[in-house]
């Protein structure tokens, strides 16, 4: 690779690190800005009954008696040496928690994106194939529904209906990982990924439609048609192939968000993913859990962005040539 490429890579990595540091500082400050501490989180108004000695003992116990700067750099130093902290409520390290939560969220994100693509791209192609027609309207309506029906509503209705009417509720069973019990795991992933996939299918559908309409009006399409390229081959190879960049961008973006944990859906379907880990951390005011987990989420977001950029190079020769 040329030296310019190297420089570009170096700049990219530096900006990634900057982003992560920014996220770390922001989360640290925001957490402290919320009134209350791990003590009031556990005791509620009962904390009023604590004597100063009891309070001091509890503060030392939770490690919140030190100055903020010491707390921050202590935590950051630990993270840099691979120690993400300890969850006093779960009695395991944050690394252990994350190792079990991250795969759940990752699997959910992958399945949701796959479903979203399977729904969104054909629907977008259908809409674009004859703009302002009945089928376009159908696509638009489905897209609008996906955007406007909140996931908590869809999730709750789907679950209540299926379990009350059909007795089908795989998420009521204890959670099984893909390795422990693939069949149960996939059954448990079915409803949540459908709910999430439906929501994400909407932006993907709309992006696909716009991109296809845009590409279709370009000269090379007319040329290809004049050359006698078949309708199907024209649609897929020439038009869709060239419209992929915005679709990939949108998919990457959505995937990044999903890795942040679909908090609501994980909550309703009792999936022990990363979103719930952050939520529980915030509720219990377990600072180390929240800080480290958010940092990991930010890292995965940044990495997905990087992967998306790399994907451009594969699908679009023009980017490679730059």
């Amino acid at each position, binding site marked *: 690779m040329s030296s310019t490429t190297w420089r570009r890579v170096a700049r990219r990595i530096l900006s990634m690190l900057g982003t992560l540091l920014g996220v770390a500082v922001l989360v640290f400050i925001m957490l402290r800005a*919320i*009134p*209350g501490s791990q003590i*009031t*989180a*556990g*005791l*509620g*108004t*009962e*904390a*009023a*009954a604590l*004597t100063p*000695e*009891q309070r001091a*003992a*509890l503060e030392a*116990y939770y490690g919140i008696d030190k100055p903020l700067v010491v707390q921050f750099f202590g935590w950051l130093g630990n993270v840099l040496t691979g120690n993400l902290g300890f*969850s*006093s*409520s*779960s*009695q*395991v390290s944050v690394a252990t*928690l994350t190792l*079990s*939560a991250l795969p759940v969220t990752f699997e959910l994100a992958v399945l949701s994106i796959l479903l979203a693509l399977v729904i969104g791209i054909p629907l977008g192609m259908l809409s674009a194939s004859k703009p302002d027609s009945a089928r376009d309207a159908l696509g638009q309506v489905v897209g609008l529904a996906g955007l406007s029906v909140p996931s908590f509503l869809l999730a*709750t209705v789907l*679950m*209540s209906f299926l*379990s*009350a009417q059909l*007795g*089908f*509720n795989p*998420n*009521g*069973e*204890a*959670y099984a990982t893909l390795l422990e019990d693939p069949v149960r795991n996939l059954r448990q992933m079915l409803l949540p990924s459908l709910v999430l996939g439906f929501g994400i299918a909407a932006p993907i559908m709309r992006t696909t439609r716009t991109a296809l309409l845009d590409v279709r009006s370009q000269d090379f399409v007319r040329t290809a048609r004049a050359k006698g390229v078949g309708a199907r081959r024209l649609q897929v190879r020439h038009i869709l192939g060239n419209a992929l960049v915005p679709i990939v961008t949108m998919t990457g973006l959505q995937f990044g968000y999903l890795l942040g944990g679909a908090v609501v859906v994980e*909550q*309703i*379907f*009792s999936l*022990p993913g990363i979103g*719930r*880990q952050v939520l*529980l951390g915030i*509720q*219990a005011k377990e600072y180390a859990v929240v800080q480290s987990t958010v940092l990991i989420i930010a890292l995965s977001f940044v990495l997905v962005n990087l992967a998306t950029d790399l994907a451009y190079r594969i699908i679009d020769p023009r980017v490679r040539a730059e």
Partner: protein
Amino acid sequence: MTRDARVKRGTLSVIGLGLAVALAASGCSSSTGASGSAGSPSPKVGGNLVVGITTDPDNLDPWKATQFQAVNILQTLYGTLTEFDKDLNVVPGLAESWTVSPDGRTVTMKLRHGVKFSDGTTFGSEDVKFSLDKIKDKATAAVSAASLASVTSVDATDPSTVTLHLSAPDAGLLANLAVINMAMLPSESTPQALKTTPDGTGPFTLKERKPNQSLTMARNDAYWGTKPSLDTIEFRIIPDETSIVSAMQSNNVQLAILNDPLVAKTAQSGSLKVTKTAQLSYHVLQLNARRPVLSDVNVRLAIQCAVDRQQVLDTAALGEGEVTGPITSPAYKSDPSARPCPTRDLTKAKEYLAKAGKSDGVTIKTIVSQGEYATSVAEAQNLKAQLAEAKITLDLEVLASDPYVNKWIAADFDAAVALNGGRPDPDGMYGRYFTSTGNLNKVAGYSSPDLDALFAQGKQSSDPNTRKGIYAKVSRNLEDNAAWIWLFTGYTYTVTSSKVTGFVPMSNGSVQYLRSTALS
């Protein structure tokens, strides 16, 4: 958020539960009540019960656990010297009997024989001394340290006898000893080890814990009482109550205790059974009588007369609950009609205001929490509307959970719409609020020499009936001075599948009867 916050508040009702039966009268108690069950015809032995809970316990150390569900789960693992029966009477636990000296300052407890911790060691008086000393030790930061304030020293007289020396008679002590925050731990145990490996004398032992997913208990075959019938209990964490009902409808979960009346209603169809249990915690409009605007008793009485409590309950909480006086525990329950204005009386309210020289009306700064519990804002709005008709303006300040708690703790309000935890023993419930030296008296905003004297009598008396009389006076005194405006108590909803027998819901939310629960 709402639900978890409510769980957090529910905690309060558990911290000091106790129905104080007089010390002397309890001296001759038999041991049968402790393990009594609701009685099921022919429970099948064995089976795996799944209980749905909404949050992972915050702490498995029984001395530090505060969260409602953590406390409940620990009841299956640990034992206490005294226990409650289903009506919240104090009955023997690990202490099979006790006697109190005539001056009330020495309590001698006979310990049960043949009790083992789950690690196999035998329970004895050394463990009791170790546990009580540690709970009292400030360095331990035990939640219930204050409950042992009257205990000056503990002697292990012989392997099966302990003697507690008190600084003053303390009729509430036996109830205090029955909470799980007073669990007996083996004398060589360390808090660090107990967090991951509980070691108690309870009917079950911890088999497996998956953070944020589940805790599984296995039957303790060495348990001293009637052996539990269930092989295992899995507490499965399902954060959403609606999802718990779904899981029960598909028979993945067989038992759950819910807070949300609307969700409970959806469970009522089909084979599920829903039992309503009135709670010890109470909804109240706390008044701060130390603020100038409320220092005149007539202003406070005007507020009391201008409120229709049933209306608050109906509009804010769907009528799911009961109008209450100050004391909510069954044996000491206040008569809700024993108050200056048992029903709403606007004429009287206006008279009281005139007596206070405030005929033009008053404005009261009121804090309300949003998210701490579901009905708070609706209660506040209804109260505001009702009081407006008596020229009393509630200036509502709606706050998020944490800022609300901070203001509440600092007593930085004229009035506060609150949901406070109750306790089985009235001394434990209100002594800390309404005696001038109580640690929450600042928050209560009211005390008087009369109340101080009444509470002192209640602590000294060892006769249950005398105590009932004393606390009826306490209750009447609080109402006559309109110290606070007590509104209503809510329900919890115990949902069970048709296969579950032998579970008895308790008004303190305890799940101790899981030990007598069976699956048919």
